[in-house]
């Protein structure tokens, strides 16, 4: 469409933030039909570029599991495990499992999660991301183990547990982890309860 000098001037004022359309422009863009169709090659080229950027950014920003977080905090702040589980109201054995990502976060009450959030001054989103990731890890760990054990039996019987664990972590970080619907529901319910007490 042709724009006259006044339209162009108003466009510049919009771009510079001197005026706003109060979402009218953004809404119009959402509804507008596509006027320029690009080739498949261009789409694929951009997809590759984005995937590389995503992989880099994900490696840097991926949220820690609850276990990794607790271990880090314990080391950095010289807090004793005893102190933590007493303050959040967890049994010692449950806390130990949590610290090693051996228990599903679903088995811990929303109240205990809220206490963890308060104790470590965590943002709800941070905690939710850690809980989500930990649950995925715990849920999929048996599948990883089965797969890796099969590989182990055929190729390398002497593979150490730590190597297996490392391989499982790598597999976990690269795999697409879609939880089954019922698991998703349970997890979302817990996350909602945690977020409810902001």
């Amino acid at each position, binding site marked *: 469409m042709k724009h006259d000098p006044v339209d162009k001037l108003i466009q510049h004022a919009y771009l510079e933030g001197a*005026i706003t359309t109060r979402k009218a422009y953004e809404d119009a863009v959402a509804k507008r039909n596509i006027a320029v169709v690009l080739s498949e090659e261009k789409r694929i080229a*951009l997809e590759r570029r984005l995937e590389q950027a995503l992989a880099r950014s994900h490696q840097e920003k991926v949220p820690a599991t609850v276990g990794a977080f607790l271990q880090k905090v314990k080391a950095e702040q010289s807090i004793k495990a005893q102190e933590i589980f007493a303050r959040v109201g967890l049994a010692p054995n449950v806390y130990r499992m949590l610290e090693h990502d051996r228990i599903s976060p679903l088995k811990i009450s929303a109240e205990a999660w809220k206490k963890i959030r308060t104790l470590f001054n965590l943002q709800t989103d941070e905690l939710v991301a850690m809980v989500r990731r930990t649950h995925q890890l715990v849920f999929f760990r048996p599948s990883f183990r089965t797969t890796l054990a099969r590989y182990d039996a055929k190729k390398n019987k002497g593979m150490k547990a730590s190597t297996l664990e490392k391989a499982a972590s790598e597999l976990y970080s690269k795999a697409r982890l879609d939880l089954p619907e019922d698991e998703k529901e349970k997890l979302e319910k817990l996350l909602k309860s945690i977020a409810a007490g902001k």
Partner: protein
Amino acid sequence: MARIPNKQVVQELKEGNPLGCRHLIGLYQEKLVSECVTVFNLVLEDSEELVSDVLLTVVQNVHDFEFKRGDGDFHLWVLTIFRNRVRDLARHQAITAGLVERFEEGDSDDGQYSRSERAVIDEIVRQYQDSLRDERSLDEGPGSGKLRIIAETLDKMESWERVLLRCRALDVPYEDIATYTGKPVKQLKVYHARVKKRFVKMLTDNHPEFVQRTTGTETHEA
């Protein structure tokens, strides 16, 4: 193909799932390139590069993005990044190629404005361009100050006129503007040119110094 909800795209990207990139491209690549070409009159090559940068920024910063009101938050966020990138390119072009020349390129004025009205528009554009060149090294929000005159003049107009001018400059359909203003589409179409003319007249009346400055320059040059 069914539209992928924004929440799904964001979650995929946050999880590092490459499918999120495909969905993001499906939602925004051609849409934003179309905006660059049709609304902001950018050339196709620049538009493609600009949109790639926008989507790259989305992917790199998605971890810090949060939904606060609803699914539309993501669209607004992407459009904000897009607007900033178009602004940066417009500034760059103004500094390197000259904005006054760009305003004259493909001008569809058709003698709608008088000589003095045109002079006022040109003077605002020139001042904006100069401010970008002057403040290039200062890094303190160049340009917007010089365009505040536009906002101030629009504020003196009636609300529906203001909405009409702002929205049409960005190709918001008349049907949408009719919903926002409560005026019939036909009336908005008829009045658009007149309202624009009134806006320029108000600019000219409120800033006679711009006309004098331009006229003075012409006399001096003559």
